[in-house]
């Protein structure tokens, strides 16, 4: 039984393949094209790439788009958490206020009263604002005075009345002005009538939330209003999307400026020392023999040098005193002390490549050393170099942050992400945003470079090991 369809005579006509026999069945990809395809498939690496581009834009273009001065102090908004733009009430410059005195009411009671009624009519006069809150109330029969307290949380009965603000010693003074350190938050004011000496056990509490205010002269000074503007209207205060630090400086502007410092060191230093390491290691690896031994011994010695010590010395050598910023010495120290590991890596790679057959083949075909290096050795070490560079950046950023943190790097007022963390740690419990943002930026940058480095290693290394 023939299980096949019957074969016809013309099925047997000779038909040798006419296509070029050497035709490749798949489009051929260069090493880099293949690596790029692999990298693109790695979502984390691509996101990191975008992040890094974003950071670069943030650093370079940021200050042009967000033009706030990083050293300008907005004294109205110190240690402000991130918030939408706040408005402030425009008020006239402060003039002293005389609390009203009730005519016909005795300043001192006739005798010592047994009980006193609670204060009634306890209310604010005018709009309570952070410049001053004015209170008035109805006088209490037989009162010889009043005590006023302020608390940030609601008192329960006579407990937790808070800060004693004022003790008035006349029963007919029925007004009080609070100017003590007012912020735009909720306060609970309590008033207790006294007989001039002792307080009685009756309390009246009022909840007040003053609005943020700014005086005419302050506003004029900061260019927020025209001279023609009159009090009573709302003025838009500086917008600080990331909040302000303990001196009232805008966090976003500082982060941008800090980015310039941190990323400058974090990217420039690695570039230079990796470049140097590449030449050094490539040279050593290519020449081999005694020169290689000598060069590597020297590199080992440089590794043994104490980093912090040399940082200090460069700082002194550059004539920078304590408390001043040492960006240049940090850069020099990083470059002079961190190149050996790159040199070692590149040297190892060059040694490996030198043994490969294609180098020998190229040489036998008449290739001069410069050709071999440029055309064969360098392209094959690019993978290692690229990966080293990508991992060197977060390392440099960490080092800069660490140095600034202990005071050996950038000093205030110049911001760097590391020094901002240093300042932020001090107010970590009360104003976490001051530590959170610089730490976040450092972490994101380092994370992005690390993930990108991982992705590059995977994309390039599998070729290097020719596993597939």
């Amino acid at each position, binding site marked *: 039984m023939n299980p*096949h369809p019957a*074969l016809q*005579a013309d*099925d047997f006509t000779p038909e*040798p*393949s006419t296509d070029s*026999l050497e035709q490749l069945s*798949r489009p051929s990809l260069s090493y880099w094209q293949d690596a790029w395809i692999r990298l693109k498939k790695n979502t984390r690496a691509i996101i990191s790439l975008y992040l890094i581009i974003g950071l670069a834009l943030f650093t370079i273009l940021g200050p042009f788009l967000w033009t706030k001065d990083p050293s300008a102090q907005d004294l109205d908004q110190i240690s402000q958490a991130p918030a939408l733009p706040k408005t402030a009430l425009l008020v006239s410059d402060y003039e002293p206020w005389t609390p009203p005195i009730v005519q016909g009411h005795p300043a001192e009671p006739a005798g010592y009263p047994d009980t006193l009624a609670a204060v009634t009519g306890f209310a604010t006069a005018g709009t309570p604002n952070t410049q001053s809150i004015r209170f008035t109330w109805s006088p209490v029969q037989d009162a010889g005075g009043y005590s006023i307290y302020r608390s940030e949380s609601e008192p329960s009965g006579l407990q937790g009345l808070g800060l004693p603000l004022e003790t008035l010693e006349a029963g007919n003074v029925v007004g009080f002005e609070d100017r003590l350190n007012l912020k735009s938050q909720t306060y609970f004011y309590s008033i207790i009538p006294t007989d001039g000496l002792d307080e009685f056990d009756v309390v009246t509490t009022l909840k007040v939330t003053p609005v943020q205010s700014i005086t005419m002269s302050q506003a004029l000074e900061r260019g927020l209003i025209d001279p023609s503007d009159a009090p009573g209207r709302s003025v838009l205060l500086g917008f600080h999307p990331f909040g302000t630090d303990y001196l009232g400086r805008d966090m976003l502007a500082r982060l941008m400026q800090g980015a310039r410092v941190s990323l400058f060191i974090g990217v420039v230093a690695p570039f230079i020392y990796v470049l140097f390491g590449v030449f050094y290691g490539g040279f050593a690896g290519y020449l081999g023999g005694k020169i290689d031994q000598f060069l590597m011994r020297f590199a080992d010695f440089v590794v043994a040098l104490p980093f912090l010590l040399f940082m200090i010395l460069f700082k002194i050598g550059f004539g920078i005193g304590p408390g001043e910023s040492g960006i240049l010495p940090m850069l020099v120290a990083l470059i002079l002390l961190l190149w050996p590991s790159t040199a070692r890596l590149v040297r190892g790679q060059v040694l490996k490549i030198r043994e490969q057959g294609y180098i020998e083949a190229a040489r036998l075909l008449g290739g001069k050393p410069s050709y071999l290096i440029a055309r064969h050795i360098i392209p094959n070490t690019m993978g290692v170099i690229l990966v080293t560079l990508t991992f060197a950046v977060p390392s440099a950023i960490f080092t800069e942050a660490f140095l600034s943190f202990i005071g050996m790097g950038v000093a205030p007022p110049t911001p760097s992400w590391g020094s901002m963390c240093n300042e932020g740690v001090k107010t970590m419990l009360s104003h976490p945003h001051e530590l959170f943002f610089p730490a976040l930026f450092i972490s994101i940058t380092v994370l992005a470079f690390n993930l990108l480095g991982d992705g590059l290693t995977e994309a390039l290394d599998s070729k290097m090991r020719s596993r597939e």
Partner: protein
Amino acid sequence: MGTHKLLEVSNLSVEFETYGGVVKAVRGVDFSVDAGEVLAIVGESGCGKSVTVQSIMGIIPMPPGKITGGSAKLKGGEILGLQAQAANQFRGKEIGMIFQDPMTSLNPTMTIGAQIAETLKVHRGLSTQQANEIASELLIRTRIPEAQKRLNQYPFEFSGGMLQRAMIAQSLACSPSLLIADEPTTALDVTIQAQILDLLKELQSRDGMAIILITHDLAVVARTAQNVCVMYAGQIVEQGSVDDIFYKSAHPYTLGLKLAMPSNVSQQNKKLEPIPGSPPDLFSPPSGCGYAARCPHAMRICHKENPPLFSDARAPHHAARCWLQAPGAPKTQGLYQTNLIASHGA
């Protein structure tokens, strides 16, 4: 006809999922091995010979690999696609395996003795002492000098040839009925090659062990094999006894391989004839015969449909996957044609 063959493989198909697509590495392979037989599987790089035997042993990582069909029966029992625990009943015990590069195929941080003893301890439950004794015997059997001293040495202290012997010793530990040798001599020089092959033959004749020998070198096949499978592009294109393959080549590819072989008959100034072109792309295998693009005798039908295996009526174990074996095909110079009815499915 009640006896099972030692190993029977039918219609084995294996695929790999890669970032570039799905590679159909093995496309419907059938062969069998009798007890005591030496079967060679020949083919060029990428033809699927290693993947075939490794799939049977179950050592292909299963993502990205996938067995998409077929079966492999050892002494009648199915062994394809078993879970690790079940597979370990025959791996190292019934079937032993040696690999191409002994230097990387042995654990660099364990002594040779410990690695051989490991097999014995796991499969036979022997104590360390007993296992070491047998390990020492095995080393002697595979002609490794100073066996006692060598037991306590590490792989890097051995030469290539000696290490391959050690690996053979390791695979023989549990007296398997089948030894799979995946290109055991490719990494060794010619003189050592001969020694290893002779050793294998000796072990086979002495213990009645079957051997599957994977190679790309026809000279090795000629020297060692009884039966041969020629693989190309994931399929078996010709199979038969070693005489059939060499003297009655029934597939153009086999012919091509023979012509490309250097001859060591002196005073023959024959030019080496390579086969032009390269194997097909297994991401999308052709619907016709895989060899058609390079075959000088290709016909119209060859490009349209993949030929089935046609066997020789006078010698049924000799078969070739070629339309030139179909009744009515034109006579082709140099090719042994059977012109008989197909007996295998495509």
